[in-house]
């Protein structure tokens, strides 16, 4: 399980503590939001009465103890608090959760600890508290840098609030990322280019740039089906994507994943664990975990109850909220590794893929993808999607998966 090659030996010393290994991350999911965004299909819930943070924090701790029993002792390479909107938590709650992680697993000093936050001033007022609690990397949900589009996206902040939050976060946290959603209705190459340039000028070391996707079960889905939202077609979406790659890399923030850009060495260590198909524990409502136990070849999947109060009740009764488990055989793991790994610019380590799957990759399918210019070899050890392959990656993966 320790067969990996460092992606780039010559890169500057990383800020994220990345040694090229898949790692072991701990993910905590805070499922509440002040408002539900119309494009979002994440597990988030709006509560009109104040959420009892103490009760939830206690449940997180109980579930964490249970998951720790499942994973056994591990050294944590990163912690990520996502949501939902974790910045609705008080710094005290965040501190409690982080301390609990350190109590259950071995947590070296200075590992990456990321938390997601919204740019509203109320949340920004707590930034210093989060830093004190141990957060060293903030991920801000900016989404757009103009008010009209922020309103369309259902965000509660305006563009000036976003700029102020970015500024404050840069001063407060050693590392900062923020998200933008593009390929919005009516967006042209020109206006996205100028918005992206402004974002780069505001950015610290990391940007997540997602094309707007109409997800099932969201208000946007219904509007789209009714013909009231038109998103850029394949041609324009593809051009927007290509332009995004060019502009970001010209400004020193090249893509290291389909939608993620960083100054070399400032990639999200935690998310790299997902894409490198490392292990992770998932705590909180609707969190997913994936980890091997000891030297076994199988990987265990845990999925907790999504509904926050139901999850809380389950934890009270059973000590955990795990609602679903799955054991992945080698072939499923090999497919998942490919599915995640080809998203990365560093690509997939073939030796590790083979060790995981217990068989070599389908050589004929691989050669066909190489011939089409969708995939390329990086030396003898790795393969990765080309620029052409990345924009149709789901189809490429479908060809390569067995």
């Amino acid at each position, binding site marked *: 399980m320790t067969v990996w090659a460092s992606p780039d030996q010559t890169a500057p010393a990383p800020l994220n503590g990345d040694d090229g290994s898949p790692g072991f991350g701990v993910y905590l999911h805070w499922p509440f939001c002040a408002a539900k965004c119309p494009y979002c299909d994440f597990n988030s819930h709006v509560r009109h009465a104040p959420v009892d943070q103490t009760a939830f924090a206690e449940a997180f701790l109980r579930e964490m103890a249970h998951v720790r029993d499942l994973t056994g002792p591990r050294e944590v390479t990163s912690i990520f608090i996502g949501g939902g909107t974790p910045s609705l938590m008080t710094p005290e709650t965040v501190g409690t959760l982080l301390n609990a992680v350190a109590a259950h697993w071995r947590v070296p000093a200075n590992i990456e600890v990321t938390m997601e936050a919204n740019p509203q001033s109320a949340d920004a007022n707590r930034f210093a508290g989060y830093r004190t609690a141990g957060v060293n990397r903030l991920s801000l949900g900016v989404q757009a840098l103009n008010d009209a589009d922020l309103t369309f996206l259902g965000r509660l902040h305006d563009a000036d609030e976003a700029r102020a939050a970015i500024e404050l976060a840069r001063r407060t946290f050693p590392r900062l990322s923020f998200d933008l959603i593009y390929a919005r209705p009516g967006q042209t190459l020109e206006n996205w280019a100028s918005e992206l340039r402004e974002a780069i000028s505001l950015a610290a070391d990391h940007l997540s740039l997602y094309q707007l996707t109409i997800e099932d079960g969201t208000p946007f889905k219904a509007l789209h089906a009714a013909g009231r939202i038109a998103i850029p077609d394949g041609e324009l979406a593809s051009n927007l994507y290509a332009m995004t790659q060019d502009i970001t890399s010209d400004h020193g923030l090249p893509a290291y994943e*389909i939608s993620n850009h960083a100054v070399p060495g400032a990639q999200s260590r935690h998310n790299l664990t*997902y894409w490198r198909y490392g292990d992770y524990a998932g705590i909180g409502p*609707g969190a*997913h975990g994936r980890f091997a136990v000891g030297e076994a070849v199988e990987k265990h999947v845990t*999925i907790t109850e999504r509904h926050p109060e139901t999850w809380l009740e389950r934890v009270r009764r059973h000590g955990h909220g795990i609602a679903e488990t799955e054991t992945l055989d080698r072939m499923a793991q090999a497919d998942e590794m490919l599915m995640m790994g080809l*998203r990365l610019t560093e690509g997939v380590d073939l030796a590790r893929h083979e060790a995981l799957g217990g068989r070599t990759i389908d050589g004929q399918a691989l050669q066909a993808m190489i011939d089409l210019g969708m995939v390329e070899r990086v030396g003898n050890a790795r393969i990765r999607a080309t620029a052409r392959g990345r924009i*149709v*990656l789901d189809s490429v993966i479908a060809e390569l998966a067995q």
Partner: protein
Amino acid sequence: MIRTGGALPLGMRPRRRPSIAIPLSRQGVRPYISAMTKTPRSHIRNFSIVAHIDHGKSTLADRLIQMTGSLEEREMKDQVLDAMDIERERGITIKANTVRLEYDAADGEHYVLNLIDTPGHVDFAYEVSRSLAACEGSLLVVDASQGVEAQTLANVYQAIDNDHEIVTVLNKVDLPAADIDRVKAQVEEVIGLDASDAVEISAKTGQGIDQVLEAIVTRLPAPPEGEGAEPLKALLVDSWYDAYLGVVVLVRIIDGRMKRGQTIRMIGTDARYQVDRVGVLTPKLVTVPELGPGEIGVFTASIKEVADTRVGDTITEDKRPTAVALPGFKPAQPVVFCGLFPVDAADFEDLRAAIGKLRLNDASFSYEMETSAALGFGFRCGFLGLLHLEIIQERLAREFDLDLIATAPSVVYRMTLTDGTVTELHNPADMPDVVKIATIEEPWIKATIMTPDDYLGAILQLCQERRGIQTDLAYVGSRAMVTYELPLNEVVFDFYDRLKSISKGYASFDYQIDGYREGDLVRMSILVNEEPVDALSMLVHRSAAEKRGRVMCEKLKDLIPRHMFKIPIQAAIGGKVIARETISAMRKDVTAKCYGGDVTRKRKLLEKQKEGKKKMRQFGRVEIPQEAFIQVLKVDG
């Protein structure tokens, strides 16, 4: 016109004919059975019913069975003679069925009436002709509101050719739309029958059924006197395979008697059998001691396969053979061919077994193994017509639970090669090099179309487009009857669908094969990404090639999903491209956000995608969905 299993309601288990639906132990329980085999010729009437589809033939048969008490009330159901699910659902008769009715007539005498219910559709004209040959008379059923239709004509002329007496029956006279006088005039004008004494009935309500029974007795002739009482001479009318009884043979006794234990000889096949069982169909099989002259009944004789019996053959006694054999029938020739391939290559053996089983009971359907570069192993099958093709496909799908791909239906071409040899071409993929072909001939049909005159213009245009030659046009009231000579190859494509669509379903259509004529035919290949797809190649008339090619390319463009590269689709004759479309490359297909929680969902999506890929056929680098092979042949009305 062509369907596969996917589009149909889920299959049911194969049904057997009603004859074996009762346990054998119950046979022969009716005390009057033995008496009825002694019926004198003068008290026997053998008749068929001819009608257009939906004019009420099967309902009338139901009423006749009910009225004469052949089945108890609890055994009665609608369309009792149509045993197959497909027959019952579509309201059509595919297999001829026989029922013996006991009738006490107004003259105080007891009669035996043998009804052979025949299929109405032209594809089964062969079944009709042999059924008619076993009878002396026919009931012509005409819908009193719709009047004479194309199929009515074809079948009634066959009955007239068989020297039948014909009793005209106007059905559905209780409907407000019934126009009895007009329809009677039509029968006289179009068919040339005296309709003044037509029986007016409603098979639905039972009105007039007694008069039909009286007309059968008084107006249809008894079986004629033959050469004498001995020896046995019988016409082999039909045969089928029964899971319990083996091959059951339907016979019409001309002379002599057939009884259990007799050693019989089939003159045509020169085979000898010992009769195990003699019976009649009520429509249940009821064992009787013997069958006498003029009667219709069945026997079993440990015959192994339906193929061992030849319809139209003469059956006689082995020791005392009859001097003169019956003229017999021409065997049915398949006129339409298509390839049937399993969707999943692993189902090939199941398909072989299923086809073999269907063939046991349907000698008119032929098959041989075929290998396609595109579709793998399958069978090239021959059918009596398009309905027959559709029904066989549907039965394979339902009764055997098979998913099939059918290739474009093709007719049988006759080719004279430059070296003088003449060959038949069943599959366009087998066409020899053009330089070796001197001439190609194709089958033509004589088509009769009847339509309300509102649609006549559009129908004439359709026939002209299909290289038709008009031979007659006549009006009966506001209905037009037009006859055309048409190449069958133009009809198998989508003619019937188009006709239905342009006439809103009001036109009726019938045809008969009318020999071969030379034609300027070329093989059109379809190339997907520069590779010919054998299953899509077809022979077309040179004048129609470009249009057909363009339509095929346009349809394929919509049916084949985008790939990572662009795909040219071409129609070509020889090396010359006559139509072209391009499927542009996929522009974007990537999940924007994918983190730890999305892995399970994405893997499940991937697994679904892999399932979907199984429904595709690989041609070089291109995957073509299976339904494309079926859809591409459908042309929108």
